[in-house]
């Protein structure tokens, strides 16, 4: 039926048609056109609402739509559908935006293409909505409209509506809101910037009742930098969760599988306030939540708790300890005698590899490159020298001076993104870039549990801003930047992470083997299939 209309419309369009159409034919044509238009509209509406029910298409430029709240946006023509949408009843409100764009008379090819596109989105929607890294507000993977993905909340700090929503959420969970500190450089004003001298604990009651004491301790250790480094943070997090689970008792009329997950949510918000969660922590949290919700309801509490504790132990053993051993095994093959290896900052994994290689009597020397303000390389240097490895220490400004001596570069990673980019400590992309210029192979070592489904091509969109006061340095009793806040045109920026494109990385060594950077999405897909 549909096709018949199309044919008629086409024939009308032909420029060589000389004959004038009769009045009745014209009327018929007009009616057909209207009918077509209506059908097309209905089809377009059904398309969006069939897919992910919770999300609505939103455009990026005006403030994005919240799902939970009902308020209508200022600029958008397409108001959010109700949080509990019913497919049929989201009719003429949702997306009138695309339909006016549709012309009623289209060519056969165009319509076919449209149909195909719609089928693709339906198929994409049917896939399990596997969310991205463990950030709370997940970006939906299945996007029906090619418009834009919704941004996670933690990169929209300059939007007062988002901040208000966050404050409300924290109030509900009885967690104090940590206020931002100091002037933020405008390019990064969408990120949080906290001061280490204003810890979150000053707003909490001292015998903390709302938050488990081990989580408070963990949050403090994160914000003061006592536990730093992706692996250390994940292990500490899981250790704290073990204490929480041990001290947990199911309230009456509640199920452990649901209640425990709800108990963990405020703790995760609290930790996020102390220091933004890392990708590895996010994956660990996802794993735990999955394990908790998979506990059968007839399981007794003690049994369930021991099961969870063994799961956590196993996770740490498999994904961190054994993975490190496997990665060392692969990496040692790449280290030959007489090598000069360059490492940057402190990566527990790379340190592990170098120590094991040294024990296996490989002869090599190490150049440790370090950068301010963290100066983590000093700790790496100490541990390597303690083992007996001969090391050289330079700051990153001397990189191009020292690179002609280097035969290999080993880098650690904070996370590996789904498009093959490596997210690591700020300065890593510089190292990779200069190494590429000197044709020195760059090897990134990363466990698979740090692989994350986020996609990023620049270091601006999602990053972490550390305390700007760390950049102040006191030499001979004088601190030049002491009153930087008084200078109105001065802003201090202390970035933590940056992303390295995959063209600069030659090889990624994971516990699954040695893969090129572009195979990361494959690993992710295999992992998802497993789960």
């Amino acid at each position, binding site marked *: 039926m549909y096709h018949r209309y199309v044919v008629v419309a086409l024939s009308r369009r032909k420029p060589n048609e000389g004959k004038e159409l009769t009045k009745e034919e014209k009327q018929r044509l007009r009616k057909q056109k209207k009918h077509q238009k209506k059908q097309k509209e209905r089809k377009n509406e059904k398309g969006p609402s069939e897919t992910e029910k919770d999300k609505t298409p939103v455009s990026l430029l005006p403030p994005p739509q919240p799902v939970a709240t009902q308020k209508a946006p200022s600029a958008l023509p397409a108001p959010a559908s109700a949080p509990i949408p019913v497919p049929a009843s989201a009719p003429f409100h949702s997306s009138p935006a695309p339909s006016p764009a549709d012309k009623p008379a289209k060519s056969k090819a165009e319509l076919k293409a449209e149909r195909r596109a719609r089928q693709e989105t339906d198929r994409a929607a049917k896939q399990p909505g596997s969310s991205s890294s463990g950030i709370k507000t997940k970006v939906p993977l299945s996007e029906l409209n090619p418009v834009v993905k919704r941004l996670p909340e933690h990169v929209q700090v300059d939007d007062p509506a988002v901040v208000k929503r966050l404050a409300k959420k924290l109030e509900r969970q009885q967690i104090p809101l940590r206020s931002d500190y100091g002037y933020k450089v405008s390019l990064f004003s969408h990120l949080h910037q906290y001061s280490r001298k204003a810890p979150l*604990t000053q707003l909490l009651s001292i015998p903390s009742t709302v938050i488990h004491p081990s989580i408070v301790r963990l949050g403090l250790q994160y914000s003061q930098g006592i536990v730093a480094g992706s692996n250390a943070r994940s292990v500490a997090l899981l250790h704290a969760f073990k204490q929480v689970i041990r001290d947990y008792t199911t309230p009456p009329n509640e199920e452990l599988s649901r209640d425990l997950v709800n108990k963990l949510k405020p703790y995760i918000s609290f930790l996020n306030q102390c220091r933004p969660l890392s990708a590895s922590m996010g994956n660990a949290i996802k794993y735990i939540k999955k394990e908790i919700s998979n506990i059968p309801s007839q399981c007794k509490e003690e049994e369930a708790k021991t099961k969870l504790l063994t799961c956590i132990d196993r996770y740490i053993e498999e994904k961190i*300890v054994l993975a490190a051993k496997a990665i060392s095994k692969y990496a040692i093959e790449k280290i030959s005698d007489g090598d000069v290896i360059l490492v940057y900052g402190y990566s527990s994994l790379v340190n592990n590899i170098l120590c094991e290689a040294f024990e296996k009597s490989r002869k090599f020397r190490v150049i440790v490159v370090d950068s301010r303000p963290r100066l983590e390389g000093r700790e790496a240097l100490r541990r390597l020298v303690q083992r007996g490895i001969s090391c050289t220490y330079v700051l990153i400004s001397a990189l191009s001076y020292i690179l002609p001596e280097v035969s290999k570069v080993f880098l650690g990673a904070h996370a590996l993104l789904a498009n093959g980019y490596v997210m690591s400590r700020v300065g890593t992309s510089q190292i990779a870039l200069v190494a590429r210029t000197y044709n020195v192979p760059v090897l990134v070592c990363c466990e698979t549990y740090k692989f994350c489904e986020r996609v990023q091509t620049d270091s601006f969109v999602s990053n972490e801003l550390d305390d700007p006061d760390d950049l102040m340095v006191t030499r001979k009793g004088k601190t030049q930047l002491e009153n930087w806040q008084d200078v109105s045109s001065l802003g201090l920026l202390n970035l933590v992470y940056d992303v390295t494109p995959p063209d600069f990385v030659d090889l990624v060594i994971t516990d699954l083997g040695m893969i090129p950077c572009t195979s990361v999405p494959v690993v992710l897909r295999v992992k998802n299939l497993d789960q």
Partner: protein
Amino acid sequence: MELQAVLMAAGGGSRMMDLTYNTPKPLLPVGNKPLIWYPLNLLERVGFEEVIVITTKEVQKMISTDPKVKLDVKMKLDLVCIQEDADMGTADALRHIQQKVKTDVLVVSCDLITDAALHEVVDLFRAHNATLSMLMSKAHEFTETVPGQKGKKKTGEQRDFVGVDGTGKRLLFMANEADLDEGVVIRKSIMRKHPRMHIKTGLVDAHLYCLKKSVVDFLADNKSISSIRGELVPYLVRKQFSKSTNSPKVIDETHQNLKKNDSNISSRDEELLHLTQERSCWNDHRGDMSDAYHGGRLRCYVHIMDEGICYRVNTLAAYIEANRLAPKLFDEPAVHPSAVVSERCLIGADSIIGASCQISDKTSIKRSTIGVSTTVREKVKVTNSIIMHGVTIEEGCNIQGSVICSNAVIGRGADIKYCLVGSAQRIEPDGEHTTASPHLMSKACSA
């Protein structure tokens, strides 16, 4: 539960016997509130809901019966009585309540008046998994003349030597001058680990300690330690750097014994903690080859306050100073609403008038504290003084820089300068008393 608060209110106030022979120290009025109210208020503000108060039977009786002693705190007070004559030190008291202590404790002394941010002390305790965390403050000189003291203040107070590391947080050395024979002796092991140490002497110990539960259990085993400040703290500070000796009751062993009790749980957790520390790139010092904390398990931390109020009311001078500053700590109106104050009297801005007072005409009250139910008649000048509860001051008196204890009666026209009038004393009319005259003690003590 994370922390339990313990308030030590059994002290005798041996350094201000003039004031405490009648009123027990915890109930001395400071700014018209009993002294014990201040630490309780501090704990309540911070968020504690329960406090264990160790006190004497006398104090407990007074708290429950005396209407003047109003502790309007919302927390639950668990009063534990000890015998007054048992001469228990603070550590003995802690040993006494060992059964009640289920988690780490925060020990506070009843004579502490401070507006410190407690979270600083507790954060050090939490973040570094410390065994001891305490609060100290830079001492301020007392500016007020102390009644009854002739001449300059004698520097009889023995100095405390406190050694901290470069960050100013880790406690490395603590000794009192009385314990040192010739000079300050610092062990080589400390110098090797912390080559730069700052030794400070002008610090006031606030007697606020966060102690791990294992310390309380250790006290239960070691009955020889009787005072927290005098013996336990220096012992812990010393123990940070000593290698584990062969003595049977060592605190490290207590740590280990406890761990053996819940063996399975703790050993795996210990492994995880060890793994975390191994993978983390943090170190508390640099310059040598050792791991964070030099591999030591016992750590003592101190938070030194630069600014803010921190007083320990254990001498007369401190008591007077505290009375000056206490009103800044709470924002109740200076003049109690139930006081009857006539219009033609001059009350300075920094004076406090207690409840149910009667201030008559033409009186002038400057920088003073007037207690509850005190009567002040006409033409009285009160300057820089502390008048406690139930005092009657007849007309024409001139009181300067003095402390008048409860229920005293000052006769007409008396002129009192820098004196301390004991409880329920009567000063004859038209008497003139200055610092030169001896203290006016109670009848029982007077010659």
